[in-house]
């Protein structure tokens, strides 16, 4: 199983990457118009740029948009290899820098949400599995499954309306309070957490049910296996049987799934950040799309795609490592 599968996984990773790079490259060039003609800017809090004809021609040439297609592609690939993602038309900075300004916020909420949803999902899943078929289990299942069907960003809007608009507990936008004066690191951390709370909560809900169901169902399946009976027979006591034997097996798929969770959350961050006006790369992508800022769009897409693919790859590799049945 092993060598072939490992190679297949890496192969798929590479092909997908190539597809993304190709899409990345082709798309903007297939769109009607060019970045400089559409000036309708919906970006909140940003300036609108107006260009003269001469400036337009200059930037056209600067971005190589007047070269034949294949030459553009090769120069694009060459730049990629060098780590040069180009210059953002809108922000007038290298794309790398723009992304690096916004990426940490996304990572913050995505990783926090992953941690929270995994821990909460596992705990709820274990409780549910131990009380299988009793009232609490059925209630939890119906409730959480219903929750999962509501798209996360709609949930986000609801949370926004309740906590920000109606109750006014949380802020409406931003990652930090603008022009804030911090009395120390702790104060700064508090402020960040205060702003990040609702986005993290929304993202957590997005994946909570998935982790919960996986934990619960795997645990139930595992508890019917013969080795659990063997462990009981050895007189080891409930606690050891559950932790060392049942959970260790049941958590395998959950742990490997965590990699995929990160990937999915990175994809879903766009909407949630838009709802809460949280300045991560999701919001950045939206703004870039509205402004038709090609290089920025391509850069963000590449970064997001690579992160997601890396997470998936990691998840696959971790699974291969953790389960002795396939590692051998």
């Amino acid at each position, binding site marked *: 199983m092993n060598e072939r599968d490992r190679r297949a996984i890496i192969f798929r990773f590479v092909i997908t990457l190539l597809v993304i790079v190709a899409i990345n490259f082709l798309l903007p060039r297939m769109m009607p118009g060019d970045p400089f003609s559409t000036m309708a800017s919906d970006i909140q809090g940003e300036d609108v740029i107006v260009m003269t004809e001469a400036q337009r021609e200059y930037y056209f040439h600067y971005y190589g948009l007047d070269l034949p297609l294949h030459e553009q592609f090769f120069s694009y690939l060459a730049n990629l290899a060098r780590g040069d993602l180009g210059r953002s038309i809108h922000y007038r900075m290298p794309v790398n820098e723009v992304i690096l300004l916004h990426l940490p916020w996304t990572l913050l909420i995505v990783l926090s949400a992953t941690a929270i949803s995994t821990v909460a999902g596992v705990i709820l899943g274990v409780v549910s599995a131990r009380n299988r078929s009793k009232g609490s289990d059925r209630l939890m299942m119906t409730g959480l499954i219903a929750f999962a069907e509501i798209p996360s960003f709609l949930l986000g809007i609801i949370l926004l309306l309740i906590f920000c608009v109606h109750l006014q507990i949380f802020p409406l936008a931003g990652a930090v309070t603008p022009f804030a004066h911090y009395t120390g690191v702790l104060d700064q951390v508090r402020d960040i957490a205060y702003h990040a709370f609702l986005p993290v909560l929304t993202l957590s809900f997005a994946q909570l049910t998935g982790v919960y169901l996986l934990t619960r169902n795997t645990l139930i399946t595992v508890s019917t*296996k*013969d*080795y659990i*009976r*063997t*462990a*009981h*027979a*050895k*007189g*080891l*006591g*409930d606690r*050891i049987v559950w932790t*060392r*034997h049942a959970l*260790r*097996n049941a958590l*395998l798929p959950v742990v490997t799934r965590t990699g995929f969770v990160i990937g999915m959350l990175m994809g879903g961050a766009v909407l949630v950040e838009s709802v809460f006006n949280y300045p991560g790369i999701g919001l950045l992508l939206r703004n870039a799309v509205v402004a038709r800022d090609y290089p920025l769009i391509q850069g963000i897409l590449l970064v997001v795609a690579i992160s997601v693919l890396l997470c998936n790859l990691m998840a696959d590799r971790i699974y291969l490592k953790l*389960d*002795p*049945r396939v590692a*051998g």
Partner: protein
Amino acid sequence: MSVLEVSNLECCYHTDNGAVKAIDGISFGLEAGEIIGVIGESGSGKTTLALSIMRLLDGRASISGTISYNGTNIAHLPEPEMNRFRWKDIAIVFQNSLDVLNPVMTVGNQVIEPLLKHENISVREAEARCADLFRTVGLDPIWMDAYPHQLSGGMRQRVLLAMALSCNPKLLILDEVTSALDAYTRKEIRDLLIGLQKKNGYGMVVVSHDLSFVSSLASRMIVLYAGRVVESGPTTDIINAPRHPYTRGLIHSTPDIFIYRDLWGIPGGEASGGDGYAGCPFGRRCTQSIDICRTSPPLLQPCGDDREVACHRGGIATLLRADDIHFRYTLPAGRVLHAVDGVDVEVREGEVLAIVGQTASGKSTLAHILAGILRPESGTVRFMDREVYGANYGHRFGGIQIVFQDPFSSTSNRFTVLDAVREPLDINGIGTAAERLDMAREALRQVRLPTIDEFLGRYCGALSGGQRQRVALARAMVMKPKLLIADETTSALDVSTAANVLRTLKGIQNRKGFAMIYISHDLSLTLKIADRIAVMDAGRIVETGNAHEVMLHPRDDRTKRLIDARISHCCHDHGDGVPTLTGMGEP
């Protein structure tokens, strides 16, 4: 004091469709150092029994009765207290299924685990003991770091055994430990178990459906059927002379106990129950059941020699009993031929007794006497406790029927097949014409003859010898006998025809369950179908016993002479100068 004493154990599974009784009143005891075997097929409750002793049944099962270990009743102990007994006192070796060991822990760690929990030793000591255990069961300690999926089935079974022995239990339960193993590994495990038992004196409960394995280990056996004990006693006694019809059927179905006999299954399907049936669980498949068998379940009763059986009829009942039969022919020259000279015969329900002897040993005369055709000079023949002669058992259903040797005189040339088969019904006025036709057809079907009108209308004179003999057989079958006497029935037929007729005959006998006395001069032939053999010589029965016993370990000289009279090429060497078939094995 006995190590284990199970009293009136009952176990119920509560499913969505109602309660299912897996064990319905089992009681047995085990002394220290004793090995007891529990035999049963699927659904007999044997695994449930093994699990209940260890209290490993899940929440949906409830048990009642007592399970007494060294005097303590563990049947309803709370879990924490039960854990003190588990593994240290009572350990179980499971069948090695795919998931019986935790796939993400090394096997070494899984064996060490109970050691660390139950005994106060350091990890290093535990590892050393684990290595010892591995060596004891024949595994290289190098495998301690392997994962379960890296071991073969036989190796995993040994790991399970090592794991069970780790805390030196007093009582060992083995649940189907040889099911997934090949014959060689099975033998190794068995030898291992016997060696360990001799050295450490474990009490063992060996649960299995594999009669060969259990009988090679256990000194006593209990046989389970549908959650009840149907028979118990010393192993050798049970195998040589089973008292319960189910046990007999099991032994018949096990090919490597009596290896010269053909394999015959038990007719009928699953155990009865569930539809308000309150009788003996084996009742619907039993060939000797009476009315009470359908209305109340029998209790396990002692029947002598430290044996018990659960049967309303006391086990396999005696059907025919002949005591001290004498019969003399007076010859023209005034000489008297003592054809039957003080013969005792006993035939039990569902049994095939072969009476073997040379020509003029008196076999046929005896057959006629047993059938009630000839009147013995002295002695009694009782069939179901009534004197046979004059009771007209041949006139009715459920009686005694006899089939003779010469096919051409067994049936009349001028009778059609239908007439011949229907004759006994016609003579005794049984049933309407249509019913007789149906019964005749049914009988013909049983002997594998055609039932189409064309064949029914054919004259017996136009049939071959084999066909006529089958017609004679059908005629006997139409009266649904409880005892069939086959007097040299196949001796006059061609070899291949004889083989076919014999197989048909034995097939009907197994299905219908009637007893059969098979008279023959051919010892090898009878070995294929007989349960017991009686050797007759000059009017006397010189040796009786289990067919294989008589054949392989003859005691009487005349029996030995009969056996040595075999002259054919044979697959194995008799040491008597008869050439063996070469090329039967690799040189």
